[in-house]
């Protein structure tokens, strides 16, 4: 098992190192093949590891990282069934995205840099999935942050892309403060920094400490997963290549925050306030994201707000303590959202880099029927049409909320249900506008056989988007919930009242999705010749960016200007210059004494003797 886990981590890292080392000599085909092979090998190792995994978790230490003063950080791994499924999901989606990328990047010259970062990202993401030591996990946490930064600003010749990368980096860094603070408290409270160590001592931990740690980790998770109030970096992160958006900003990295909460489930179990907060934040973010998606015209920004919204549902489930439910939605979302993003990538390339859905229209559907079919599969799952994967997984999260007693969870359920309705509306708005309408000013269409080849890796994802729900169907359908059964020994089992609520919730969910579809048809059907609404509050993300700019960035700029001019230049530099001048004056005095005649030297010698003897005489009397 140790070998398999080590190999799983080794292949992507080796791939990244090779890409970096031979970036100049690798041909385009070799570079793409090498990168995909590295991920395929990692996937094989992940599958083999899951195949051999029993109920009991494996605790593996690959070596010591640093040790001082009684504290040590190890490259230690907690490989349980949750981590096993997570690694398979990550490597599987990553493999398909690598295959897609090999064609998507067919005209870009920096392909080696691209695949290097992509492999490196998978390596760091696997660390997050596997790590037991929280310091080791933090390495992965920061590593994916770095890869995300580098890939958002991948086309770094254009300033807005670099700015977007910087914004993502800084805003996630704000969340990381919470991680570092939590890490410090965990080390202080339990003496070690591992998840297993924390779990083992969880009963002895005071509730206040656990709550504090939980809130700090929740803050970190909000930053990474683009939840309110730290959500505004994700829409801008769409400046990167579209496969990157699919892999990092939809399927894997943004779910890292939620995955962290899942791994820390024992901690959240004794800190109920944290769970309730996570649930409300998640539900509010789900509504926020769905509402903002309504106001976008850029297909990738619609999907970005949709990602924010869907990760909110995962927070909702994790906050309710339903790890398998949250993980179920994580997997389903990984499949249908990466599918949608990659479809969007093809749409954009087909329309000559046009992102505006109001310039695409029915001609695109007629030119590429396969693409439309793929999109429809993803859209059905995202809008939770009955029997698709999204239907079951989202219904499960809402059932968690309503089955939980307490007004906070009720509020979360109401927010989540409204968001579910809005989700169907914006998804089919996107669908009808981009694939059915007849725009007045359409973009030219590109006919390139490579575009059709890019569709090939997407079919497995389309199949999963439609059918993955039957891995974990609700109890009332009388089928076996494989996922719940598989995870039963690893996480807290599902309380029965959730199962009872599921029938009711799934009915509501179906009604909401279908009525959302109908509303979208009424508003955006081709006969109405839909035109884009003027940019408003929803387009600007409800003014979250403006809020930060006015209330945080602007005062900070004013303060730093004052500190620079007033404190640094005037006070500190002035003091330093004054001290230097004084010292130079002293130095001249000392130098004048130093070039003295011998008589001065003799005088000082005898004077010193006299002074010392006088001092002795005074002290002795």
């Amino acid at each position, binding site marked *: 098992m140790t070998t398999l886990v080590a190999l799983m981590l080794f292949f992507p890292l080796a791939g990244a190192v090779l890409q970096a080392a031979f970036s100049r000599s690798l041909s385009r085909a070799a570079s793409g093949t090498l990168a995909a092979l590295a991920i395929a090998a990692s996937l094989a190792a992940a599958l083999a590891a899951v195949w051999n995994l029993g109920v009991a978790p494996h605790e593996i230490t690959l070596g010591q990282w640093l040790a001082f003063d009684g504290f040590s950080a190890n490259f230690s791994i907690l490989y349980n069934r949750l981590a096993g499924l997570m690694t398979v999901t990550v490597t599987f989606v990553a493999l398909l995205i690598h295959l897609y990328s090999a064609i998507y990047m067919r005209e870009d010259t920096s392909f080696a840099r691209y695949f290097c970062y992509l492999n490196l990202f998978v390596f760091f993401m696997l660390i997050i999935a596997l790590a037991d030591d929280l310091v080791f996990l933090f390495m992965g946490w920061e590593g994916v942050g770095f890869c995300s930064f580098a890939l958002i600003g991948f086309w770094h010749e254009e300033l807005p892309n670099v700015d977007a990368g910087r914004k993502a980096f800084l805003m996630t860094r704000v969340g990381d403060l919470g991680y570092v603070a939590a890490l410090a408290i965990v080390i202080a409270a339990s003496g070690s920094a591992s998840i297993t160590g924390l779990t083992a001592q969880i009963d002895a931990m005071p509730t206040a400490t656990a709550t504090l740690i939980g809130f700090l980790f929740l803050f970190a998770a909000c930053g990474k997963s683009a939840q309110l109030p730290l959500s505004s970096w994700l829409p801008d992160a769409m400046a990167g290549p579209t496969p990157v958006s699919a892999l990092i900003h939809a399927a894997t990295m943004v779910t890292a925050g939620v995955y962290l909460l899942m791994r820390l489930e024992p901690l959240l179990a004794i800190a109920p306030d944290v769970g309730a907060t996570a649930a409300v934040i998640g539900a509010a973010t789900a509504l926020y994201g769905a509402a903002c998606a309504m106001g976008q015209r850029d297909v990738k920004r619609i999907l970005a707000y949709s990602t924010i919204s869907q990760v909110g549902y995962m927070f909702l489930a994790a906050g309710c303590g339903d790890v398998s439910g949250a993980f179920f939605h994580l997997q389903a979302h990984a499949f249908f959202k990466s599918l949608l993003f990659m479809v969007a990538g093809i749409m954009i390339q087909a329309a000559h880099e046009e992102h505006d859905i109001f310039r695409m229209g029915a001609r695109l559907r007629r030119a590429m029927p396969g693409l439309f079919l793929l999109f429809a599969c993803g859209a059905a799952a995202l809008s939770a049409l009955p029997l698709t994967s999204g239907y079951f997984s989202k219904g499960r999260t809402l059932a968690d909320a309503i089955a939980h007693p307490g007004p906070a969870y009720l509020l979360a359920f109401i927010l989540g249900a409204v968001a579910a309705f809005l989700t169907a509306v914006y998804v089919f708005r996107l669908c009808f506008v981009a694939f059915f309408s007849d725009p007045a000013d359409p973009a030219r269409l590109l006919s390139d056989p490579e575009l059709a080849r890019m569709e090939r890796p997407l079919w497995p994802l389309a199949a999963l988007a439609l059918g993955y729900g039957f891995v974990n169907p609700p109890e009332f359908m009388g089928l076996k919930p494989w996922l719940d059964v598989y995870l039963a020994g690893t996480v807290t089992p599902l309380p029965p009242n959730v199962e009872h609520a599921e029938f009711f919730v799934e009915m509501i969910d179906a009604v909401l999705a279908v009525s959302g579809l109908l509303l979208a048809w009424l508003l955006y059907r081709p006969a109405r010749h839909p035109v884009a609404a003027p940019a408003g509050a929803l387009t600007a993300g409800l003014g979250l960016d403006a809020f930060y700019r006015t209330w945080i960035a602007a005062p900070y700029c004013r303060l730093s200007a004052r500190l620079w001019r007033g404190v640094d230049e005037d006070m500190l530099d002035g003091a330093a210059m004054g001290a230097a001048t004084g010292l130079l004056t002293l130095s001249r005095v000392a130098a004048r*004494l130093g070039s003295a005649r*011998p008589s001065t030297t003799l005088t000082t*010698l005898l004077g010193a003797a006299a002074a010392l003897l006088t001092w002795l005489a005074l002290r002795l009397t």
Partner: protein
Amino acid sequence: MTAQLVLYFPHLSLALGGLVILLAACLRRTPATLFPILAGVFAALPGLWSLAGPTGASGIGCYYAGLLSVITLATVALTARYAARRGFAGDALYGLVLWSALGMLLLAASDDWLMLIVGLELASLCLYAVVASRLSDPLGTEAALKYFLPGAMSLAVLVFGAALVYAGSGSLIIADSLAAGGPIVSAGLALALIGIGFKLSLAPVHLWTPDVYQGAPAPIAAFLSTGSKAATAAALLHLCAEASPEARELLWPALAGVAGLTMAAGNIGALCQKSVKRILAYSSIAQMGYIAMAAMAVNDGGGEAALFYLAAFALMDLGAFGAVGLLSGEIGDRDDVTAYQGLGYVHPWRAGALAISLLSLAGLPPTAGFIGKFLVFGAALRAGYVGLAAFGIVTAVIGIFYALRVVAALYMQSGVEAHPAIPAPAGPAGGLALGVMAAGVLALGLFPQSLLGAIAALFGGG
């Protein structure tokens, strides 16, 4: 008898070495190159002796024998070509250097007041003559005189102090006499410390140092600032270690003031100097302030720190003065800071050694000077001299400026043409010695444990 011979082998070899050189000069047609070779061989013998670790010898004696042997050997190597080119090489120069080393060895390892005085005087008398060895140079003669006159007076103060100690305690053994205590002994110790402080150029009796170092030929200034300082500092450490608690209580506040004043005077005095040799002189004054601080904490780990610092200081000052000597033209030493501009590109190796030595004097990592300062300040803090240590750190920060000023001049692109870029050839021995010093500075900075372990073992075994 044999045991005695083994015990005093370093002293005997140095004394005999001087005699052999003088005798060789009496023979007809002795080649001039023979003198430095003979001097080098005899100077190396004490080092080999200390490496062999003879039975019966004290660990501390071995350490000083080794250190002084390295210093003397390096001085001879640096002097050889320098003196031959400038026409003042001869039997007297090398003989006096060896006998001066003998005096330093006696001074460093003395247990007895008389031996301390004899050692100090033997070392000093030879040095007065060596400083003036370049007869054609009026600056050298002036320097020798400025060294000799106050030096004689300081010896008088030291002898008077020793006499008071003897009068107060009835013993000439340093340990016994200082243990006796009493006001007379304290007064005697105070005067003795002033005499030793003069040789160490502690402020306020440091005023002779810049003139003498500037006037003396550069390799001789190196010997003066390392060998004589190391031996005198050894005597200071010894006296401080043996001082009675009563004497400590009386004298330590004064010593703390002296140490602080010395650090300040050395580092601040160097700031506005235009002559590199004067800068180095002020720098060595400042380093002795740190040694004095370590001497106050001698029984709290300051002793080991001071021993390490002495070795580090010997390496870096030999490197600095040696590089000045090797970079100098045949008429006078290269002295003005502006004359060093751009030498880093013309003579990368010699200028590099000078830069490393200067950075070490400033106490920047990864050099021996950094580790030495670290140990010394650590010892002072452990012994409770927090204020003095803090003040010392401030002065050390000030001191970085003048070291960097010279280093910056070395690597300045413009202004190379204004001064003769081609100095006299360094000679194989000088170049080798300089390289070894610079390498040693870096090695001690990177792997201080090698020397620290040896020091700890000497103390344990001694």
